[in-house]
């Protein structure tokens, strides 16, 4: 009925896709990540870390991405019998000028609290950033302890 286009979830296998276009989508990102983390067997603390990191990355898309639009794909993964969740955040530009600077703790040049990237990195086990004029992709992974 009232499923707004922005909040559409698409479950393919163990992957959940969430479109990010408005602040209401932050809730969708959080709920999707929490659900996947719970299914992957992550404890409450690790769930919260993953959700918080993902929420920050989604907020970054709303703040900085072209058209304040992007998407998240959350999927359960396994490595050597250990379960985890991988979340991929993508947008279509304009890209991050200086990734190293963006990863430094403190405050970003845009004047907003710059805890986004460095803080998120601290909360997850792995973070990988690919950026360019055509867009930025941030992949985070949280493993079950």
């Amino acid at each position, binding site marked *: 009925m009232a499923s707004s286009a922005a909040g559409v979830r698409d479950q393919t296998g163990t992957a959940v896709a969430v479109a990010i276009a408005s602040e*209401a989508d932050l809730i969708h990102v*959080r709920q999707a990540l*929490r659900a996947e983390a719970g299914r992957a067997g992550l*404890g*409450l*603390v690790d769930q*919260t*870390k993953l959700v918080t990191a993902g929420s920050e990355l989604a907020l970054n898309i709303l703040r900085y991405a072209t058209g304040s639009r992007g998407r998240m794909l959350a999927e359960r993964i396994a490595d050597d019998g250990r379960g985890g969740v991988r979340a991929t955040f993508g947008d279509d530009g304009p890209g991050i000028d200086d990734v190293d600077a963006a990863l430094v703790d403190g405050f970003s040049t845009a004047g907003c609290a710059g805890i986004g990237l460095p803080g998120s990195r601290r909360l997850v086990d792995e973070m990988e950033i690919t950026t360019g004029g055509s867009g930025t992709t941030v992949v985070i992974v949280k493993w079950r302890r």
Partner: protein
Amino acid sequence: MEAVSRATAELATSREEVDRLRRELEDTNRGLIALYAELEMAREAEARLAAIVQSSDDAMCSMTTERILDSWNAGAERLFSYPAGEAVGRPVDLLVPDEHRPELDAMLERLRDGERAVSCDTWRRRRDGSLVEVAITMSAMRGPRGRLIGYAAVLHDLTGRRRAEADLAAAQAAREVLAARDRIARGIHDGAIQAIFAAGMRLQATATISRDAVMRERLEGVIRQLDVVIADLRSQVYGLSRAARVEVAQVDQEDHQLDQRHRREDGDDSR
């Protein structure tokens, strides 16, 4: 009518949204509480570990992979006379005499290569420049996924142990000298005195059967002289072995006192 049903639908959507937010808030709260509980547990564990390190009698310190000291306990302050504020932030080489630097390099390399802990007896330099012999055990500190994040060292002052070893060796040497003296005394008693005594007995027998009065007189004179020699030797031998026994007893007592003093000094060290 249509407006009412539209408003009703909007209300339902808003209620759904509020419900989602409420649930999200609840989940976030629970997560924060769990996170805080874990943080507090980690802090307590850290405080307990810090207390163990701080109260240890041994010197404990750690350094970064770049050999910069980054922790320093009370034992280290006592051993090196550097307060923590003066040691932390400075290179570990501050404490290492030049000739022992290659040895430290080798230890660190073994730890980098994956050995869990390495130990050796070596020398370190105090704040006043004096050297101190220490037993040192170093281990690699590794973070998540085995990444090397630094080295930890425990150093035990060997000065007391070495002094006790030297005192013990000296006492043993003294005891050996006295035992040898005792053996000599017994040898003189069992060998020389018995031989002289036997010679005296034979002379006595000869004197008894001799008919020559002058010869008898002479023999008895020699026998008396031999008796004097035997008495003299006996008193000397007795003196020698008695002195030996007394001295051994004295050394034993000194040993005992030394032991007690060391124990007291060790007690002082541990304060």
